Structure formats: C-alpha cells, structure tokens
C-alpha cells in the first residue's frame, strides 16, 4: 500500500486539495476518482493560478462572436465567423521534438474544427536555445519537421509564424501553434451537453495508454525525473486527423449533434465533464464500450488517457446511427459510450459496476483557484550602454541580417505547405499572412508575435509592445484588428517572482487592448516552463486577426517599381535596450525596452491603414525588432531592387538605424506621401546596390546580392550540410 503522501505526490495534489476532495465527496476518493481530480485540478486544465488574473482582460468588442471559455474564440469578418486560438506544446516538444510539435498541431486543429469551422491556417511561434549547440539544433529541426509532418498531410497551410533564440530556451523550448478556421456565422458548435438523456458518441482513434497524466506533467517542472516521464510520448496520426476532421464537419453540416468537445488534455474526463458542466447536466460513461488500442487497460487509464485524434459528441436524439454511418464512411470508428443525465454527477461504470461518482461541477467548474502571492519583478532600466562601439554600419547590418534573429526563415517555411487551400494571397516571409475568403473581396490578415528579450527586461512593457507590434503588422496591409488570442509562457507560478511577471504581463496586455479596443477571444497559459529551477523569460505570444477590405489592393513587394520613394513614418526614440543590435553586433543582452506612446502608435496605424486603403502604398513594413536598416534590407530582398538613400537625422545614427522604437513603419510609394505623422523621405528604389548617405557621408555601399546571400545562408548552412 502506497502512503497517501506518495499517492498525492504522484497525482500532483496538495494535502489541502485532498481535504477539499474529501469534503466534496463526504468520503475518501477511490483511486479512479483521485485520478480525475488530479487531472482536472491540474494547472493545465483548471487554470487555478491564472484564472483570477485572466478575468481582467477585455473580452468585448464590436466584432466579437465568442470570447474565452470555449475551445476557441470567434470574431466576425466579412460576414463569416473566424475561429482562432493558440496553444502551447512546450513540454512535449522538449521530450520528443517531432512528435511533441506534431501533436501540438493536431490539438489546436481539433480545437478549431470542434467549433464547426474548417481550419484555413496555422501559424507557429517557436523559441529555442542558441543554435551553436547541437542539442538546440536537433530540437529545432525536430519541431519544424513535426509541424510540417502533421500540418501538411491534414491540408491546412502553415502560413506564418516566428522563431527566435535565447539561452534560457535550451532546456525549455517554446512551441506555440495558432490555428484559424472559418465557419458560417450560424454554424458554430459549442462544448455544451444540452439536455439530459442524450447519447455521448466517441469518435476517432482507439484509446491507448498515451500521455496518462500529460496534463499533470505539463503542470510540473522538469527535473531529474524527466527521463522517467519520457514514456508518456504520444505519436500523432495526421491521416486519422484529416478523416476525423472531414467526418466531424460533415456531421455538423447535417446538424446531427448538440455539442462537441475534443479529447485533449485529460481526455475523456475533461471533455465529458466540461460539456456536462456547461450544459447543466450530468454524465454516465460506460468505459467498457470505449474502443481500446492496448490490452488490459483499466478504468483509471481509460479516463485519463490523452490519446490523440479523438472527439466526444452529444448526439441529437435519434441521430446516433446516422452519425456512426458518416464516421464509418470516413473510416473512423464511432461508438456510444455514455449519456447525459439529470443529476449533474459524473459517473463512470466498468461492466456495470460503478468506478467513479463525483459531482460534475467539482471537476469542471469548481476546481480550486489560487490568488498566488506575487512580487513585482525587477525591471531592467539600464540605458543602452554601448551604442557607439560599432560605428561601421555596413558591418553591423551584415551581422544583424545573418544572425539567427533576422536571417531568412525560408528554410523553415518552405517545409510547410503554405499554399494548400489556394487562399494564401501574401506568402510567408513578406509581412502578415493574408488569406482570401473564396468568393469575397475581403480577406483576413494574420500575425503571431512575441519578444522574450523584452519580456525578460520588463514583462508589462513587453506585453504592450507585443500587442502594438501585432497590430502594426496588420496595419501594413491595411488591416484593422478584430481580436487576439494569446499564449502566456512562464515559469513556476508558485514562485512569487514568476507570478509577478505573470500579473504584470496581464496588466500590460489589458492596457494595450483596452486602448485599442480589441478583445481577447481566448488563449492558453503554459506555466512550469522551468528546468532544474531555471525559468524561461516571461513570453507572451500574441496572435492577431485583422480584416483586409480588398485583397486585390494590398501592398506587396511586387508592386514596388524602380524610382519609387522610400519613406519613414513615425517617431524615433533612444531605443536600443534589449535590441537585436545589441545581441547580434555587441553580444549584449538586456537594457531598457523601447518606450511606447500608445496615442502615437494608434495614429501611425490609422495613417498606415488609410494610406493603404487609399491605394497610396506599394509596400509597407513595420520596423520593430532589428530596426530600420535591417528591415529595409529585407524589404529590398523581396522587392528585388536596390536603393539609394540620402538623409539626415538629428538622433544618434545607431538609434535611427537600429533602434527598435515602435510606432515606426517604412513605406514604399510613388510620388510624395502625406500623413498626420512625421514623414521622412529616405531615398529611392534604384539599381542593384544598397547605397546610403547619412548626414552627408557615405556609410553604406553593398550589392544587394551580397546582402541577400548573408541573409539567406544561416539556416541552410546549419541544417543542410
């Protein structure tokens, strides 16, 4: 007999939580029940440390259809429902990069099509340790091919994303994946059980012993026992996912189900209890009917399994057979495994014998919530110490564009099928992704952004800056933001310092979103990103969806012609702290993050949107990470023409050229450009070189070809030897 202490440890439950369970049940829980509480009260499923803070985020907006609380958020765009969400799969991707990333994609896809939407796009935000180390390269290579290996077969284009590198991610990479789907406005399905007496239909892969306690694992730090936890690895089956998706969408189109929930973390337990809780009913599960992959599985394992590619549906009365027929047509097994009941209890049976009987609410609705103690994080206020050390801008530019922070991401995105579904109007690498909606002139613009270097220096400001950056990205194609999703990646919330970072981040996000009047529609929180006590820098990942009024007129590099002007819009400050320049050129980290004035930011974005919609902009890029010169060079690579620049500036040149002041954008346009923000003409698109006269002196003269070569070679040279 294991001691209670040991048992609780294994289930990641505290003694207080155990007392609470006893009080709820009025008796000792049996082992199965203990398992249920263990997963449902895990950080991953219950948001017990974050919920009180997440509540502060603004969740109202004029385009909002569904805010947080469902599998994904929904906004209205062009008369359709756009369904989107981001999820993390950090821990599994460290343990097994390929499968971890692949199953991460699978999970977020299911969140979208469970809502009745056909997934139309994936984006990924990836953070790894420095690539000098082979182990980090192996993780990155595995993650990228895992995303490709799952997303490509399912036929959902991976149209965008971002990747960056910081030391702390060596033992704790971030793999956050966002999925976007489109549904008819009246065709959205919810994870609600409706009424009592309806059948629960299980569809998809048979249940194996995969990832039992995956949710609890995602709620604990990595320590020495990581090795031992490896047996939990789940293998994704994108082929089955594709069939499951088609069958599910067909069942929905024929209106055969009342509610639906994917079996993600905590599998059958969470999907059934959450639907019951939201529907105000109870459930009975007959576990011996659940299709199994492995022999000898017991009720505990069946309830907690996190096998992939499974769905739980509440059938409309009398529609069970028709549902089964559709799934069978797609080669997917579907069986009735239970029913909804009046009594609001969660009951599980094994061959007629009850094995668990607890109140539904205690699992899904009333999990403990903690107001964890937190302390204000230290803010790095150091003014950038050494901007003047490198005065050779040409050398600095080359270093930056060939550094991992700025080098061409083509090696990554060409492994992703980013064109399937034939909606990708703006290909990866150029700006935000723009996807048309067939039969309409409107399009959606998508972006995903994060900046852990800012997060490390100042979590709150980082959140504000990241939101602003995401919206500025959208503005560059003339898109107005409709809503955001977010993923909050942090260390151990039981540490007041980490909790402080979290609280500050929420504050920052709230401030920015309220200012822009854009709602959060959902998201994900990933805590315990620590290995051997060392936490990652707080990293808020923002996924934003915007509306493009007419995709035929969006700015794009092909529109730029020789002779067009290059204009800088916006304001330049002294913002070299925590910049790419410091990292890539001077090998320094830290320093005060850029200062942002939200009023100016909004003005800049409004002007960009106006100029684009008036057709005055050939191409526009925003200047944040990397600063003006590297981003200009990158724009020229896409345009494939050189430039001659000649301008004066009162600021220190380093601030001007490499500073990361927000509220700035670069615009390529014919003729002159007028706007209600400062506009400076930098030069002209011309020739095959990048030439720059700054304050009267020639500072730059390089063939674009040579620049391009340094920009393009990093990832191929590291991975395709």
């Amino acid at each position, binding site marked *: 007999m294991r001691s209670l202490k040991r048992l609780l440890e294994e289930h990641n439950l505290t003694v207080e939580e155990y007392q609470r369970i006893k009080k709820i049940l009025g008796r000792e829980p049996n082992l199965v029940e203990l398992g249920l509480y263990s997963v449902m009260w895990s950080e991953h499923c219950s948001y017990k440390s974050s919920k009180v803070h997440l509540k502060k985020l603004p969740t109202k907006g004029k385009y909002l259809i569904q805010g947080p609380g469902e599998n994904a958020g929904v906004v209205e765009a062009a008369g359709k429902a756009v369904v989107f969400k981001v999820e993390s799969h950090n821990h599994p991707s460290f343990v097994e990069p390929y499968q971890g990333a692949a199953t991460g994609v699978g999970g977020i896809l299911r969140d979208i099509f469970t809502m009745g939407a056909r997934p139309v796009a994936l984006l990924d935000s990836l953070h790894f340790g420095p690539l000098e180390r082979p182990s980090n390269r192996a993780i990155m290579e595995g993650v990228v091919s895992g995303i490709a290996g799952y997303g490509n*077969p399912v036929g959902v284009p991976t149209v965008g994303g971002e990747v960056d590198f910081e030391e702390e991610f060596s033992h704790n990479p971030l793999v956050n994946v966002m999925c976007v789907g489109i549904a008819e406005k009246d065709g959205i399905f919810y994870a609600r059980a409706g009424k009592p007496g309806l059948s629960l239909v299980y569809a998809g892969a048979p249940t194996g012993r995969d990832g039992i306690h995956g949710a609890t694992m995602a709620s604990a730090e990595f320590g020495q026992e990581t090795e031992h936890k490896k047996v939990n690895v789940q293998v994704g089956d994108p*082929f089955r996912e594709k069939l499951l998706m088609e069958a599910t969408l067909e069942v929905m189109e024929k209106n055969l189900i009342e509610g639906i929930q994917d079996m993600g973390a905590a599998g059958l337990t969470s999907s059934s209890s959450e639907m019951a809780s939201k529907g105000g009913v109870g459930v009975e599960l007959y576990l011996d009917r659940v299709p199994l992959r492995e022999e000898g599985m017991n009720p505990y394992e069946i309830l907690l399994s996190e096998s992939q590619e499974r769905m739980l549906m509440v059938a409309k009365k009398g529609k069970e057979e028709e549902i089964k027929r559709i799934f069978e047509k797609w080669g997917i097994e579907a069986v009735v495994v239970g029913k909804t009941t009046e009594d609001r209890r969660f009951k599980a049976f094994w061959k007629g014998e009850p094995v668990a009987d607890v109140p539904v609410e205690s699992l899904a609705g009333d999990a403990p919530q903690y107001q964890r103690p937190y302390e204000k994080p230290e803010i790095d206020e150091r003014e950038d110490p050494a901007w003047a050390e490198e005065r050779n801008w040409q050398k600095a530019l080359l270093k930056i564009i060939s550094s991992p922070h700025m080098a061409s991401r083509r090696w990554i995105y060409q492994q992703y*099928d980013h064109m399937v579904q034939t909606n*990708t109007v703006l290909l990866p690498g150029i700006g935000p992704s723009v996807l048309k909606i067939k039969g309409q002139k409107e399009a959606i613009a998508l972006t995903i952004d994060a900046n852990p270097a800012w997060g490390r220096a100042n979590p709150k400001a980082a959140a504000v800056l990241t939101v602003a950056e995401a919206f500025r990205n959208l503005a560059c194609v003339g898109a107005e933001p409709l809503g955001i999703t977010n993923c909050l990646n942090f260390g151990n919330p039981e540490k007041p310092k980490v909790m402080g970072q979290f609280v500050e981040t929420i504050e920052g996000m709230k401030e920015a979103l309220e200012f822009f009047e854009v709602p959060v529609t959902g998201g994900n929180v990933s805590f315990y990103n620590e290995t051997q006590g060392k936490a990652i820098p707080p990293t808020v990942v923002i996924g934003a969806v915007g509306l493009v009024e007419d995709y035929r007129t969006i700015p794009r590099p092909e529109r730029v012609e020789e002779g067009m002007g290059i204009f800088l819009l916006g304001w330049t400050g002294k913002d070299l702290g925590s910049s790419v320049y410091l990292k890539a050129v001077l090998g320094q980290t830290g320093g005060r993050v850029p200062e942002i004035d939200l009023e100016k930011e909004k003005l800049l974005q409004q002007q960009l949107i106006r100029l684009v919609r008036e057709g005055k902009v050939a191409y526009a890029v925003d200047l944040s990470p990397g600063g003006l010169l590297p981003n200009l060079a990158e724009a020229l690579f896409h345009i494939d023409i050189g430039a001659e620049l000649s301008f004066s500036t009162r600021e220190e040149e380093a601030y001007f050229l490499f500073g990361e002041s927000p509220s700035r954008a670069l615009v390529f346009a014919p003729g002159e450009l007028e706007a209600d923000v400062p506009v400076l003409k930098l030069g002209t698109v011309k020739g095959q070189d990048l030439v720059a006269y700054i304050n009267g002196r020639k500072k730059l003269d390089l063939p674009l070809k040579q620049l391009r070569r340094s920009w393009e070679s990093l990832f191929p040279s590291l991975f395709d030897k």
Partner: protein
Amino acid sequence: MGNRKIRFGVVVFPGTNCDRDTYHVIKEVAEEEAVYLWHRERDLRGSQVVVLPGGFSYGDYLRSGAIARFSPIMEAIREFAEGGGLVLGICNGFQILLEAGLLPGAMLRNKGLRFICRFEELEVENAETPFTLLYEKGERVKMPIAHIDGNYFIEPHKLALLEREKRVVFRYRENPNGSLNDIAGIINRGGNILGMMPHPERASEAELGSTDGLRTFLSAAKYVRES
C-alpha cells in the same frame, strides 16, 4: 458543340487534400463542370477528364500513393484510360499513377529529405499533349511544388525511351528534388495520362502569384471539346 462544358471528375481518396482546390479552379476559374469521385465508387459519373488531385492519400503511409492505388475507383480509371480517356495526376495523383503502373517509374524521397513548398520555374517540353495544347514548346512557366517524395526515378533504358518518345512534358529549370533529367511531369505512351509534381491548380489565379497552371485544365477541356 461550341461552348459545351466539359465534365472533370476530381477523385477523393482518404487523405486527399487538394480536391477542393482543384474542384474550385475547374469550376470557378476554368468555368467547366466538376464532380467529386469517391474512392470507393466504380462509376466515373460521366467524367470526360479524370483528375487525381494532390494531398496525402492514406497519409502517404507505406509509400506515397501505394495504398490508394488499390481503391475501387482506380479500376474504373484504368478502364477509362485504356479507352483513351484523359487522366491528370497532380502531385500525390502522379504518385498514385506511378504506383498503379499507369505511368512508368517511381518516386523517391527528395534529395534533401525535406518537404519543399515553393514556386518553381518549369519548361514546357512537349506542347502537343492534350494537357499542354495551350502552351508553347520551350515556354517557361511558374507553378508551385509541395512534396517530400518528388525525386523521380526510372531505369536508365526506360528513361532514354521516355526522352526519345518526347514523353517528358515538364522539366524543372532548377532541380529541387533530385529527379532524373529534371523531370517534373511525364505522359504515357498513349498520350492521355499526364502525371506532374507541380500544382497547376495553385497557379490558376493571379492573386496567388501565377496563372500559368490554368492552361493545363483549359487545354484538357479544349482537347475534349474539339475531339
């Protein structure tokens, strides 16, 4: 005769994922008729051109196209092709045609072992097939590829024969995957079955970056209309 619409059958295998794109281009862009053909059927529903679209039939498990070739619909397609019917295999469709023995050769893993999705420049080598009537011989066209098993292999003497019989229809300008003789698309000896790795349906609308692929569908329709 004149403007009678031509009916294209778009085959759907489990795991096919370019079926909707192909259907869309045929119907909305080429403005012909399109019907889906389910892999378990044996009836081509009056199709005048059969298209095996891209994607990952059966997840491309075992080998790309290896399992799909056993589908009931493939028997019907074989018969249709033997009677001279036009069959176009795109990407995974090409792989299925190879596995089914309707076209010669086989696909190996790409030389770099990675999935590659990007635009490629192709040269039209044979503009006299029913699928390339509307192209010029030697014309350079831009179409995307998206595959991991596109490295075309065939025994040397058969390769020589392919070349001699002018059955290489599209060739890559810059070989992305290791294909022998830069082969991107080939036709059978009867001249009615074309297999190509590039995706013409992804290059049929200007906003997607190229319209060079559209003529593949238009050629087939024209050929059927005029024969």
